[in-house]
């Protein structure tokens, strides 16, 4: 049976009750593959391992600039995967992930400028920023989902939140706008915060954009990806998909859909916050325009083009679109945005599932055919 082709099948909701009693670790590991994620079996994991290996040895064959650049791409993938969970799996289209991105980015800046980078505080700042992004998302999610708004309204409310945030931060220019030692600096944004720093006997390791940061980010992306796979194939993820497919039926089955949606939204916000804090740490600056209309459109483009209903397609699509976007920017950033808009239109009209998801399904069928 090719279950991965029809993730919305009903038995997926109850599949876990048939599991034998096993240690919880074994259960979670077994959830690395399941009905809600594409890719299973030895072949898939071999390819996945080879890809990670290739990513790990890639810096040996490349220049430092390209490595720092790849790290920059990976910074964004967390926000994209979070949006994949919120939009693709839960069915709540959020335009405002950049609000959580920006909040966490500014929080990282304010915290590290005030408390410095000693004793590994940058990591604590990172955690606090991510938590703040998640909490804001939970709060907004509470009002939205417990107010039972759905569909297009979620998009509008989240978009308004991020645009108002942008307007607010853009007017914080004067010296009265400061938190501790950190000047918010209005439209020019904040800069000069320390990058992530690992405390180490005999001198801290400062993760400037380069080799060290690249490996840290690669590890984080892999962990986040595997963690999300497990979560999405767990009962929690099954309920999210059930809500996406038919909210009334999910509610009739006894699930408090509001709470599930709110939690998924919080998770998406926390992941967007992770991207935001890492972005600030990567470039040591953050500006209000990172929450503007164009910035808010980009995650939508990545996820829509990649394929929102599968976390693997989201991840690969995001990296590919980011790479393509930057290659285009070399020829003129004005045209890159037009290409983005056109890509979005073409995706929605021709491959609503997303280019990468459609391609992956096609490859999957080829392999199945060859094995028979």
């Amino acid at each position: 049976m090719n279950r991965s082709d029809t993730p919305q099948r009903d038995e997926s909701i109850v599949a876990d009750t048939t599991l034998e009693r096993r240690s919880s670790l074994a259960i979670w590991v077994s959830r690395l593959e399941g009905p809600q994620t594409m890719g299973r079996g030895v072949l898939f994991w071999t390819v996945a391992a080879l890809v990670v290996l290739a990513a790990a040895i890639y810096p040996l064959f490349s220049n430092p600039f390209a490595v720092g650049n790849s790290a920059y791409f990976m910074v964004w993938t967390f926000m994209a995967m979070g949006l994949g969970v919120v939009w693709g799996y839960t069915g709540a289209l959020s335009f405002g992930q950049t609000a959580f991105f920006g909040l966490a980015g500014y929080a990282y800046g304010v915290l590290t400028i005030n408390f410095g980078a000693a004793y590994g505080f940058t990591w604590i700042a990172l955690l606090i920023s991510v938590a703040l992004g998640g909490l804001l998302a939970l709060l907004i999610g509470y009002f939205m989902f417990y107010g039972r708004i759905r569909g297009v309204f979620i998009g509008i409310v989240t978009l308004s939140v991020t645009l108002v945030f942008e307007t607010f931060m853009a007017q914080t220019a004067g010296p009265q706008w400061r938190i501790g030692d950190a000047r918010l600096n209005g439209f020019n944004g904040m800069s000069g915060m320390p990058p992530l720093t690992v405390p180490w006997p005999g001198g801290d390791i400062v993760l400037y954009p380069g080799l060290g940061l690249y490996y840290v980010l690669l590890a984080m992306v892999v962990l986040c990806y595997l963690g999300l796979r497990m979560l999405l194939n767990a009962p929690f993820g099954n309920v999210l998909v059930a809500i996406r497919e038919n909210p009334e039926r999910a509610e009739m089955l006894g699930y408090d859909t509001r709470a599930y949606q709110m939690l998924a939204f919080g998770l998406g916000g926390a992941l967007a916050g992770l991207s935001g804090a890492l972005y600030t740490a990567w470039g040591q600056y953050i500006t209000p325009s990172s929450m503007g209309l164009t910035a808010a459109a980009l995650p939508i483009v990545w996820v829509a083009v990649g394929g929102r209903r599968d976390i693997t397609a989201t991840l690969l699509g995001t990296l590919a679109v980011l790479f393509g976007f930057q290659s285009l920017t070399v020829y003129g950033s004005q045209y890159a945005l037009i290409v983005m808009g056109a890509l979005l239109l073409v995706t929605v009209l021709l491959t609503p599932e997303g280019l990468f998801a459609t391609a992956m399904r096609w490859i999957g069928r080829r392999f199945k055919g060859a094995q028979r």
Partner: protein
Amino acid sequence: MELIATAFAMAYQFGDAFAFLVISCAGLAIIFGMMGIINLAHGEFIMCGAYVTASTARMGFPLPVAILCGALVAGIVGMIVERTVVRHLYHRPLDSIIATWGISLIATQGVLIVLGSTMQGIGTPLGSIEVGERSYSAYRLVLMGAAVALLSGLYLLFYHTRFGVIARATIQRPQMAQALGVDTRRIYGLTFGLGAALAGLAGGLYAPTMTMVPTMGATFIVESFVTVVVGGADIFVGAAPAAAILAVIRAALTAWYGQLFGQIGLLLAVIIVIRVMPGGLSAWIKRTRQ
């Protein structure tokens, strides 16, 4: 005298905010109320109307003619967009948001590339009037009149013309209307065109008061979205009272704390409103009437 001047100042603030909300949200509210589609390219239709108005006005046409030209061009562009893109997405409302956002990105950047980062605007006409010690823009008073005229015009269109009857029938029971011989696709096309034309009208009306930049549509969208969300699906019992309520909030906060807090107040209002009355004002009003 002092009292009258203060009262006039407050009424002016309120009227200004009300006119802005009504005029900027009308097109969005029509398209959403009739078709259930949120048009994220709304701001770009406004921009289109403003640009056309400014260029025709600078060619020497009188301003009212120029504004009508802006609305007309935006309406035609809207009908083309409906025919090529939106028509295929009626059964996928979320995807239609994404598609219109794609259009909005292309339009903003396209205008930036073709026409440059700013365009020479047109000055605000009609000068100013003096009440008490402060002076007020007379053109803004005209805008307030325009908002009221717009609402009355739409009311007449939807409740006292043949098109209005057919359009309302199409929203309420599309299959039934189709069975009675209504070309529903044409009605949807016309409705989308009307919404776009109203956006163009908004752009034209506000063109003399703004700087002409390709991103000028963005200044309208938060306010118009908020009004539509608070109002709900019906423009007359939803968007219009929502605009009145939000105008009070915005005028008061703007007067006391400044523009930004007016906007934040609107955002908080919308978040609270969706929590206590899902479906917006129009759903709430309809429920209490029953």
